[in-house]
C-alpha cells in the first residue's frame, strides 16, 4: 500500500505528461528528451533548479502543442553528483530509453564521465556544467550552455584590473567547480600580468574558513580577494570575511549567483562583486536589451510555479532545453545528425544566460560579455557592467 503510493507519487510527472498527450490527441511518437542531473547530493543546488526548470518547460511546450507537432517526453535520473552513476544513467537514457537528445550533466565530472559514451552513441548532448574542458577541444556531439569558468575568471580579473588591482588573494573550494576555477584563475592572471599572492582552499563540507582567510589577510600586498566555489562554502567565506573585518574588494564567482546566496551571507555580502547572468537583475536591464524579456519571463514563471527563487543554474537548463527545441525544429526531425548540425549552426538565440552563437569551433556560443558584473548594494544585486 505504502509502496504503491510511493510509486504513484514518483510517476506523477510521467502521468501528467501522458494525460496531456491524450488531451492533445497526438498520434505521433513523443520526442524523448533525456536528462541526468545531480538532483540530490552535494551538487543538488545545481540539479534541483535544473530539473524543476526542465519539468515546467516541457509541460509548457506540450500545452502549447509540442515540437514539430509531437509532444515532448522528459526522462530524467538523479546521478547524486557521482560520475559513475552519471555514466550509467547516460547509458540507460541512450540504450534503454532511446532518447533523442540529452540535456543534462550538472557537474563537470558527471558530464565528462558521460562524454565518451555519448560521442560513441552519436546522440546530441547539451551539458549544463561549467568547466572549459567540456567544449575545448570541441567534441562533435557535445554542447554546453553555461559560460565557462575561464570566462568568469577573465571577466572578474578584467574588472579588477579596471579598478587598478593586480595582486589577488585566491580562496577556492576543493570541489570540481572551485578547483577548476582556481586553475583558470591562475592561468588568466598570468596572461593578464596579475599576480596571485595567496592561494588557499577549503573543502566543500568545511564549516569555518576563518583560518584560510586569516592566512590571506596576513599575506602582504593582497589588493583584492576572490572566492571561487559553490554551495554554502562561499556564503561562509563571505561571513568570515566580514567578521575578520577585511576591507579589501571582494569577489565571488558565478557559482553563487542566486538570491539564496544573499539570504545566507546576509549583510556580510555588502559590496562584493561577481559575474552573473542578468537573471538576478532583470529589471535593471535597459529596455533595449534583447535578453530583458526572456529573463523577466523565466524568472516570473519559475518563481510562480515553484515558489522559490530562481537561480542561474536553472537558467542553464532553460537555455539547454530551448536550444534543443530550436535545433529539432530547424532540423525538422529528430534525426541525430540533423539535430546536431542544427545545434552547431544556431545563431542569435537569445537565452537567459546570454546570446548564443554556435559554430563548428565553438560549442558553447557565448562570449565573456554575456557575464554581467553585479555588486551587492543594500542587500540587493546591482548591475555594474
Amino acid at each position, binding site marked *: 500500500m505504502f509502496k504503491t503510493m510511493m510509486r504513484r507519487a514518483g510517476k506523477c510527472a510521467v502521468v501528467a505528461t501522458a494525460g496531456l498527450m491524450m488531451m492533445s490527441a497526438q498520434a505521433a511518437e513523443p520526442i524523448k528528451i533525456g536528462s541526468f542531473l545531480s538532483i540530490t547530493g552535494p551538487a543538488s543546488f545545481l540539479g534541483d533548479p535544473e530539473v524543476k526548470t526542465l519539468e515546467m518547460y516541457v509541460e509548457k511546450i506540450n500545452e502549447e502543442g509540442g515540437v514539430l507537432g509531437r509532444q515532448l517526453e522528459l526522462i530524467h535520473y538523479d546521478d547524486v553528483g557521482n560520475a559513475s552513476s552519471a555514466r550509467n544513467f547516460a547509458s540507460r537514457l541512450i540504450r534503454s530509453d532511446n532518447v533523442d537528445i540529452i540535456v543534462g550533466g550538472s557537474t563537470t565530472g558527471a558530464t565528462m564521465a558521460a562524454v565518451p559514451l555519448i560521442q560513441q552513441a552519436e546522440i546530441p548532448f547539451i551539458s549544463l556544467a561549467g568547466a572549459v574542458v567540456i567544449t575545448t577541444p570541441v567534441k562533435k556531439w557535445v554542447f554546453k550552455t553555461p559560460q565557462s569558468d575561464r570566462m568568469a575568471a577573465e571577466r572578474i580579473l578584467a574588472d579588477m584590473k579596471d579598478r587598478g588591482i593586480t595582486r589577488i588573494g585566491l580562496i577556492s573550494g576543493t570541489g570540481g567547480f572551485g578547483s577548476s576555477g582556481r586553475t583558470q584563475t591562475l592561468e588568466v592572471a598570468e596572461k593578464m600580468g596579475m599576480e596571485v599572492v595567496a592561494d588557499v582552499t577549503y573543502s566543500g563540507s568545511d*564549516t569555518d574558513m*576563518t*583560518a584560510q582567510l586569516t592566512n590571506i589577510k596576513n599575506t602582504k600586498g593582497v589588493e583584492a580577494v576572490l572566492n571561487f566555489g559553490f554551495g554554502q562554502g562561499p556564503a561562509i567565506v563571505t561571513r568570515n570575511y566580514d567578521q575578520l573585518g577585511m576591507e579589501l574588494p571582494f569577489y565571488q564567482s558565478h557559482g553563487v549567483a542566486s538570491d539564496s546566496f544573499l539570504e545566507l551571507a546576509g549583510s556580510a555580502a555588502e559590496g562584493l562583486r561577481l559575474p552573473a547572468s542578468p537573471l538576478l537583475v532583470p529589471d535593471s536591464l535597459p529596455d533595449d536589451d534583447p535578453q530583458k524579456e526572456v529573463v523577466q519571463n523565466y524568472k516570473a514563471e519559475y518563481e510562480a510555479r515553484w515558489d522559490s527563487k530562481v537561480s542561474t543554474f536553472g537558467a542553464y537548463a532553460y537555455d539547454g532545453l530551448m536550444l534543443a527545441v530550436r535545433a529539432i525544429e530547424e532540423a525538422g526531425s529528430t534525426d541525430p545528425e540533423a539535430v546536431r548540425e542544427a545545434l552547431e549552426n544556431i545563431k542569435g538565440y537569445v537565452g537567459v544566460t546570454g546570446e548564443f552563437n554556435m559554430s563548428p569551433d565553438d560549442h558553447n556560443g557565448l562570449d565573456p560579455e554575456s557575464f554581467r558584473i553585479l555588486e551587492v548594494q543594500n542587500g540587493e544585486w546591482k548591475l555594474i557592467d
Partner: protein
Amino acid sequence: MLAEFLQYLFTGITIGATYALIALGFTLIYNASHVINFAQGEFLMIGGMATVSLTAMGVPMIIAIVLAIILAGVLGIALQRFAIAPAKQADVVTLIIITIGASIFIRGIAQVVWGKEYHVMQNFSSDEPIWVFGAVLNSQSLWVLGVGAVVVVALVLFFTKTLTGKAILATSMNKEAARLVGVRTQMVLMLAFLVSALLGSVAGIVVAPITFTSYDIGIILGLKGFVAAAIGGLGSGVGAVVGGLALGIVEAMAAGYISSDYKDAVAFSMILLVLFFMPRGLFGPKVVERV
C-alpha cells in the same frame, strides 16, 4: 603572530566544541550498548533544520528550539526502539550498517520535508564580532562554548548524582549485573539514545548560525564526531571532549600553517599517529584481555 595564532585557536576551539558535543553523543550510546551510531549526525541536522523551519513558520525562536530538541529526542528513542533493539543479536558491523541505513532514511525524509536548500539561523545574540588581542571571535562561538560547557557539567551531574545516570553507567560496565540489581536495561538503552539525541540536536542548534544548516549537514559533522570520539578513546567522556577540541584545533592550525588543501589529511594522519601509540585512544579504558 600572536593574533594569527589566537585566530586559528578560536576557530579550532569553536568547531572543536561542536565535534566534542557530537563525540559525547557517540560515547553515550557506545557506553550503553557498544553500538557506533552512524546516525548521530542526523540528530544534529534535525536540531538545526527543525528550529529553522519552525521559526520560518512564525514560531518564536525559543519555542522552536524546544520543539526541535523534543523532535530529535523522539527520533532517538524511535531509532533505539525500532532499529537497534530488534537487531540486538547482530554483529557490530551489521549494527553499523543499520545505523547507516537509518541515517540515510532520516536524511531522505528531511530532504523531502524541508528541501535541499541551506538555511541561515540568526546569531543568538549580537552579530558584532569580539576582538581579543587582534583576533576576532564570533559571538556565537561563545554560545557554542558556553552551551558545550553547560552540557558537559549537566552530564557529569547526571551520571554522578542521579539514579538514572548511575543506572546507565552500571549498564555500560556490566549489563548482566545491572539487570540483576534491578536496572531495566532496555529502558537504560532507550535513555542513552534519548540523551544522545538531545545532545546532538543541541549541538546542531547552537552551531547552525555559524555553519548554516541543511538536510545533509549531518554526514560530515557526524563523521568528525566519530573521529573525535575515537581519538579520545571510545567510551570516555573526557576523551570525547578532548578529542573533539584536539581535532578542531589541529584542523584550524593545519589550514593556517601547513596547507589548506591537506588540512583534513593532517587531521586524519594525527588520528593514525594517536592510535599508533595509544591503540585505545587518548583516554580509552585500559582493558586486560581475559582468557
